[in-house]
Each structure stands twice: as C-alpha cells, then as structure tokens.
C-alpha cells in the first residue's frame, strides 16, 4: 500500500473587502426610528463594506486571490482548477471564472467554472473541490467566493441594507493530507423557499423593464422594486431555525462525532440575532462558537472563509483544529462539513 497523501485539505484562506464603508451612524441618520446602537445590538454589525461603481464581484475575487498567493507564498502555476461562487457575474456569458483564469495568470490547463449559490456556497465549493481531488482528477483547487449584494439592494430597504456587505474570499484546497481532513458533507435544497430571498427581475424569467423598476412600500415601511433584493425575514428565520439544527445533527451523526469533538463551530455569518438564536437552540458553548461579523457584515458565500481567516489571524484557530462549517440561505440551500484547519 502506498503511504502517499490522497486526501484533500483546506490549506490557506485570504479575504478582500472593498474600501467604501457604511456605518450604523450613517444608517441611523436615514432610518431615524433605529439608533446606531440598536442596529449594532441586533445585527452585531458595526460596518459593512461596499463595492464602488464599476467594481464587480470578480474584481473583489481577483484581489482576494492575489492576497492569498502573496500571504501564503503560493505558486499560481500549480493551480489546476478554479471554482467561483457568485450571484453577481460580470456577464451573462462567459463565466467570470474564465475571465479570472486569464486575469490571474493561471495555466490554460486549469479547469474553471462559476456556480450560483449564496450563503451555502462555500461549503458546496469545498464538496466539489474534495470530489475533484479525491477522485484523482485535480490536485490544487482555488475556491473564490465573491458577491456585491449592495448593488441589488434598494437604498430605502432597511431590512437588508443593515445586514449585507460586499466582499470576497480566496481559499486553496490541495491534495496533501494522509488522513481525511475534509468531510463528510451534508447537502440539502428546498426550492419551495425560492421566493423568500430573491431578486425577481434581471434573469430570463423576468427581464428588467420600466414595470419591474417601479418601487413599492411594504407593510414595514421598506421600499423596493422587482429589480431589488427581497428578503422575507420571518420565513428565513423559520427556515434557519429548522434546517440548521437538523443539518448539524445529521453531520455529527454521519461523522460519528459529538459536539465535544469539535473545536470551532463556524456557521454562515448571517447576523448576530440569527447566530445567537441558533447557538441557544443547539446549546453550543460560546467558546466554540465563532462570530466574525462586526466589521464585515453578511458577505453571503464569503462569510465562512472570512471568519476562518480572521479567527486564524487572531490565534483563536490553530493548525489542526477541527471546525464544523455550515452554510444556509438563498435557494433554500444548505450544506455542512467538518474541516481540519
């Protein structure tokens, strides 16, 4: 039997945030019935970063990748697959991943694809990377997650403007572990929730038009059109409080582990209210529960890798720690895994 490493592992993570920032003071000036302190108390977010006009998700992904290469001394020539998770591609076609292959100077023997998921996307990308590597198809997979929800949000919609920030992360999954270091995976989908977190217009089903641009006020005083992001908060909370504890239990059972075996629980960083409710419900000890959202906001598919990068930087996560990663949201879509960090 060969002793050569045949397992995939998540070896490096870096992130990039655009320069412009939206503070709670600025939001409180626009939405006068919520104070800056109340926004911070409820969301756990002090600052969100916003992409500039003309700055796209692929720009953010490019900078995250360059940072990953520089910070971790990675030779880009060795990367043989690029996965980009985004809901804001540069064009309808080609895939932004193909554009990024050229821009990042990756080999033309590198496979590249986009996929469209939100808050569950990072764990889905890990599952695909692990599959490519452990099936012997590829050896070094670059995962880029990037989104610019701020461009989809109506400025007069407090319900989402307080939560979402733009950002990107770059992660490298490589062949190199002698023991399994990623997985098992629990994946799930429930398309019956598609309408509860949606941008209705702009795709092939409903083209943007003068009619879809008409703004309407909802019962909570928020304004949006069919061109804008809509989130039914109550429905999303119901979905999350049901799906996340169930998925986590299924993951632990499949792995043959208990919460005591896990060093860090890193959920999609939706907002502090949601994370606190989940932590209480699942009874996760605070010292195991990573919250890294205060100066970032909800960056959709990048929240988990950004949290990993920050917790590593602060020394909270050490080499070899076992983390439970779980993403959930738009789709509905969810995914969980265990990762040796």
């Amino acid at each position, binding site marked *: 039997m060969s002793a050569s490493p045949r397992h995939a592992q998540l070896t490096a993570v870096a992130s990039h945030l655009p320069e412009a920032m939206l503070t709670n003071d600025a939001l409180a000036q626009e939405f006068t019935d919520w104070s800056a302190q109340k926004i911070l108390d409820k969301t756990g977010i002090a600052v969100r970063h916003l992409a500039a006009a003309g700055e796209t998700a692929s720009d953010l992904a490019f900078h995250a990748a360059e940072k990953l290469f520089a910070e971790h001394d990675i030779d880009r020539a060795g990367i043989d697959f690029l996965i980009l998770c985004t809901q804001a591609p540069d064009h309808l076609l080609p895939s932004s991943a193909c554009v990024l292959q050229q821009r990042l100077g990756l080999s033309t023997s590198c496979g590249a694809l986009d996929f469209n998921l939100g808050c569950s996307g990072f764990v889905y990308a890990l599952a695909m990377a692990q599959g490519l590597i452990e099936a012997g198809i590829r050896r070094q997979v670059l995962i880029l997650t990037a989104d610019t929800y701020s461009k989809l949000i109506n400025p007069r919609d407090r319900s989402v403007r307080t939560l979402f920030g733009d950002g990107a992360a770059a992660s490298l999954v490589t062949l190199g572990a002698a023991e399994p270091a990623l997985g098992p995976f629990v994946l799930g989908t429930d398309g019956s929730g598609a309408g509860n977190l949606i941008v209705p217009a702009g795709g092939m089903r409903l083209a943007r038009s003068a009619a879809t641009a008409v703004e309407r006020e909802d019962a909570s005083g928020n304004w949006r059109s069919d061109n804008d992001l809509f989130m039914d908060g*109550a429905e999303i909370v119901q979905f999350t409080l049901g799906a996340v504890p169930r998925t986590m239990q299924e993951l632990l059972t499949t792995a043959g582990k208990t919460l005591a075996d896990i060093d860090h629980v890193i959920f999609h960083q939706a907002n502090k209210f949601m994370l606190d409710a989940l932590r209480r419900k699942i009874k996760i000890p605070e010292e195991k529960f990573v919250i890294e959202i205060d100066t970032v906001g909800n960056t959709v598919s990048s929240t988990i890798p950004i949290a990993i990068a920050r917790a590593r930087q602060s020394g909270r996560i050490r080499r070899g720690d076992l983390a439970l990663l779980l993403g959930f949201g738009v789709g509905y879509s969810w995914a969980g895994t265990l990762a040796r960090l």
Partner: protein
Amino acid sequence: MQEFFDGMADILEIDAAQVAPALVLADYAWDSLAIISTIALVDDLFDQMLDGQALAACTTLADVQALIKPKA
C-alpha cells in the same frame, strides 16, 4: 409564561413590569425585527414555530399568546 413576558419586554424595549396581555403592540417597537425576534423566542421557549403573517396581524400581546399552543 414569565420567561415569555421577559423576552417580550426585551423585544419591545420596555420594562418587564409594563408587559401585560392587554398591551397594544403598535404602541411599542412592534416592527419586522420584533416579529422575527418573537418567532425565535417562542421557538426557544415552547419549541413552536409561529407564522410571520399571523404575528404581523396581532394587535395585542394576548393575540400573540393565543398563537402559542399549550405544551402537550
């Protein structure tokens, strides 16, 4: 039920002593965030998922209580 009243006091940003079934929700901070907070509170205390639209239609705290089924 005391834990429920304490939780509702937090959500409505009032003193726990002010919380009573006759309380008119619209007089306090009964907005979309309060509704989702109430869903999480009732799930935590009673292991029940309340419907957002049913909560939005509540006028008084007693209306919210009426949505909560007694524990079997």
